């Protein structure tokens, strides 16, 4: 029996899920607490990773052939990359006009 199957016996699915949950909530904390837009994006990346860990874990443990999760994860990574690129552009645009990347200084639009 090879290592892969061993993993299945030795580490229950829940472990991976809990890990992802922790990563996810750390990411959430980052988004809620960070001021710098770029750092917020990083935190979002953490959340995305958490999501894909879930996907992959489920895919790995689910019935054979159902590897949609893997594909999902691939797509997530793609989207994440695109997202970062786009976000970067917008952050730069804001920075050019406002000389700041701190989101809580952008509150001219309110009420």
């Amino acid at each position, binding site marked *: 029996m090879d290592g892969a199957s061993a993993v299945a016996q030795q580490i229950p699915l829940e472990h991976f899920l809990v890990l992802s949950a922790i990563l996810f909530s750390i990411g959430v904390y980052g988004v*809620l607490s960070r*001021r710098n837009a770029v750092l917020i994006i990083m935190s979002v990346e953490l959340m995305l990773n958490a999501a894909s860990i879930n996907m992959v874990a489920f895919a790995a443990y689910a019935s054979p052939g159902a590897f949609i999760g893997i594909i999902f994860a691939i797509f997530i990574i793609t989207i994440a990359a695109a997202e970062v690129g786009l976000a970067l552009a917008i952050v730069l645009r804001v920075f050019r006009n406002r000389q700041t990347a701190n*989101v*809580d200084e952008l*509150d001219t639009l*309110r009420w």
Partner: protein
Amino acid sequence: MGMTDAWLLPLLPAGAFVVLLLFGPYLPRKGDWIAIGAMAATFGLVFPIIFDFTDELSRHGAEFAGVANSTQWLEVPGYLELRLGVHVDAITIVMLAVVTFVSLMVQVYSLAYMKGDSRYGWFYAVLSLFTASMLALVLADNFLLLYFAWELVGLCSYLLIGHYSHLRSAAEASKKAFITTRLGDVGLLIAIILLWRDTGTFNIQEIIAAAQAGTIRTEVLTASVVLLFLGAMGKSAQFPFHVWLPDAMEGPTPVSALIHAATMVVAGVYLVARTLPLFALVEGGQELVLAVGLLTTFMSAGMGLVMTDIKRVIAYSTINSLGLMFVALGVGAPGAAMLYLFTHAFFKALLFLGAGSVIHATDRQEVDQLGGLWSKMPITGVTFAVGALSMAGLPFLSGFWAKDEILHALLDNRGVFALTLLTLPVTAFYMTRVFVLTFLGEPKDPEAHAHAHESPLTMWVPLALLAGLTFVSGLIVFDQVGRALGFPGGIGEIIYAHEPEIFHFSVGNAIGSSLLVLLGLALAWYIYMLRPGTSAVAVRTFRPVYTLLVNKFYIDAVYQAIVDNVVLGVARMVAWFDRNVVNDTGVDGAGYTTKFAGYLLKYQQTGRLPNYALGIVVGVIALALVAFSIKG
């Protein structure tokens, strides 16, 4: 032309009214001839009806209840039917005669009196309308039509009192008249509906029958009788509704003669006479009438003493007479009441027209500006004297016979009898007073006296006719006269079919009352003719009484105060409440509350991205927590 065709009578003047209203301005002489023509025709048509009635009477005898003829007006099938119809019986006949004749006289009289008035045509139009409504009123076989006409005569009175609308006083007087009577009408209308509720009909005769059959619950009957009487009090200016009548003198004098002496104001008497059986059925019904009548008689007599406006004096005398009629009704002598009504119509109209002629000639109506007109306007003087004396009850003028009938009816009610006797000299006193001050003595206003002149033909002829009637109309109490006129069983039968009443003359009464009358006359003659100035002394000696009387027992003042402070005060309070509480607090308040909620809520939009993100997370957590708490 029989009794069943009586419905034609009101239509003639009504037609005249419509024609005058629409085309009056374009007609020669503003169309007064149409009005008078219609009136004359109506008057003419009354006779065939009277004769038809007497034939029927002779055929059926005293029990003849009259003839009715009606047509449907509107109907809620199975629930409510309103009919318009006429019912001709004795009372009707009397009223017909009075109304048509006096109307005719007044309209003729007005030809000269109202000459050159800016709303001459309008005046005749309304007069016609009034006559029409008055005829409808007396012909009505059911309460609905009666109320209908009742309100219309009120309207006409309102319009005619306010005829000189450019005078503030006239405007106020007309308003006062309408509203005061209207208050009484509230009672009348409620009474009508209450009676309908228990009997299912508006027909007067049927209701009386039902009442006598006892199908009406007592409390309902009592209530409706009292309310009915309220209506009568309002129209007939009985205390406490009497205040409007003196003010009504703001109207043209012919109007005062027709409406506020001869016809409309006696509608109350007529109504009570019609429904007397109901009063009889009710515990204390008649006593109520009696009390009110008596009280009114006294107060009006008192006030009549001190008034200086010639028309007002006559007005109070009218109230006085009306009170007397109610007294008669109160003791269950409708015959006497109707007789008095009949005669009173003539001599009171005469008095007013006479006063009118004086005013026409002098433009004065304060007695202390008049005087010494006897020489200037003899006809007016004489006729006025006749009227005054008849009012005073001097033998053997019509007023005397009628009054005597009433006294006789009171015989078995000593207290009332005595009290009534007391008023006789007073009445005689102020009638004499007003006559003396107007026609005799020195002219107090030479200028007015100078251009005073006898009134033209169209004015004095009616005076003469009425004076004549004032002499004779009383005589019909004698059976012989009645028979001579073709009435079997004397006029009494006519006057009230349900109690064939024969004239009874007790010399004692006659002499006693006449003496009292003469006393009054003499006193007045002494004070105002022989010792002018004594009146001033009298005034000084009885200062408090005098002030009380001059101020009409302060009743008007009190009413005014109530209206100004209580009624309008309440109204203003309600209006304030409506504006500030209901609207500004209730309606607007709701609006502002909503807006304020929005104001509070809008601050969730801080503009800070982290807050937004937090909002999202909180949303998720909330959903999850609730979900867990439900599921887990």
